[in-house]
């Protein structure tokens, strides 16, 4: 059966607009987890890549994609996982980064590039220089590399004294 181009784009648009349950200002397209959306008649196959191995939001994302497509009249939905290549914070779209900045997040810099040889230990060096998303000060300090969700680190600003989240480079 021939599928009209509008159907494909519509299913793609629906999937792209599903919100990330843990950072509900970002869509799944902003987050960069959608690998493909294939439509054949009433059937849609969506392939996504998990952000972190243990991210509990993945199950919710799958549920939400399925429900949104069902609501739009796609009766049969399959959601596949693609593990390789692994998700990188580099995959967050420009629009996604802009939304994060507006919401007061510190956005990730470029993900670490793998060089040859063993992975280096980071013992004392600051892992990154970042600016306070509230006041722009460079006088910030890491509170913890692990925050409210797997993808965020906790920082505080020593000038305006506000705590803030930094989306980690991975």
């Amino acid at each position, binding site marked *: 059966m021939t599928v009209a181009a509008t159907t494909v784009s519509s299913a793609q648009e629906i999937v792209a607009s599903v919100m990330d349950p843990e950072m509900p200002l970002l869509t799944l397209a902003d987050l960069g987890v959608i690998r493909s959306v294939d439509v054949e008649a009433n059937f849609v196959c969506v392939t996504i890549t998990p952000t972190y191995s243990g991210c509990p939001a993945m199950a919710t994302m799958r*549920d939400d994609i399925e429900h949104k497509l069902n609501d739009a009249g796609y009766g049969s939905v399959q959601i596949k*996982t693609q*593990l390789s290549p692994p998700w990188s914070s580099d995959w967050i779209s420009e629009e996604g980064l802009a939304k994060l900045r507006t919401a007061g997040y510190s956005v990730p810099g470029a993900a670490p590039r793998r060089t040859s040889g063993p992975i280096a230990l980071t*013992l004392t060096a600051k892992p990154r220089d970042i600016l306070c998303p509230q006041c722009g000060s460079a006088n910030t300090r890491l509170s913890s590399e692990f925050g409210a969700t797997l993808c965020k680190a906790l920082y505080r600003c020593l000038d305006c004294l506000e705590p803030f989240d930094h989306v980690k480079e991975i």
Partner: protein
Amino acid sequence: MNDHDSAYDGLVDGDGHGQWAFGTSFDDPLAGVDTTVPGDVDLGALARYCLMLGDDALVSSQRLAEWSTRAPELEEEVALANVGLDLIGQARLLLARAAAADSTVVPFISDTSPVPAEDALAFFRDQFGFRNVRLVELANGDFAHTVVRLLVFATWRLALFDRLRTSRDPVLAAVANKGVKELTYHRDYAARWVVTLGAGTAESKRRTADALLEIFPFVDELFVPTQDELVLAEVGVGVDPRTVRPEFDAVLAQVLHAAEMEEPPARFSGFVGGRGGRAGLHTGALGLLLAEMQSVAREHPEGVW
């Protein structure tokens, strides 16, 4: 209904799914992943290898979760729980991979049980079926003990996973590729704490020295290859753990030097009749850990969450 606009919307959701934060259905962590194995690979060995690596992560994550509500600071509680969550993610994939490679490793519960394979492996095996190294099952002890153990475990696992990224099993390679990014954060976290404690006060130094004495007898077991590891390393699927020892030793020496700590004298806890954790022979600590971890699932074997 699924826009997460209101926490109460889900309570009136007609399908009954919305009231649970992450749904009520079990989902296959390997859904849609190509689990085809190269023809020359021994499936039983692959399944046992995935159980080894999965059990290491599962048992570690249970120990890390025990810190919830009792870590020295809220930030550390969150950090230890985050590390545990990464590891449980790795464990789910590896246990699911074990079941896909050889379904005979999965314990039978009942004909009607809705429990997926990776949960059956986690909650319905007794301690003799677990293949984790004994290092990960030891009781938490104090915070110094926990970060020294995490340093040893993350350093070993990162070096191993780094080599496993080129495994001929596409699932193992993908799990390793993902895991390397996570383990790099775990190792840095533990290493920084060991330096802080070791080069800190007299009391923190004393506790770190005690932790090293308690943990080091369980280090050598990480590098003793099982028959399965040797067989799989031969065909490019697994890694011979002996090959990661130089990297492990170099990282530990670097951290201990920065922490102003001496490496404790080599003392291997040894095996019992030639058997250790990989052969299902564990310390008494594992049985207690499993009794707590498995109690709810075993109480409700037909349960759906």
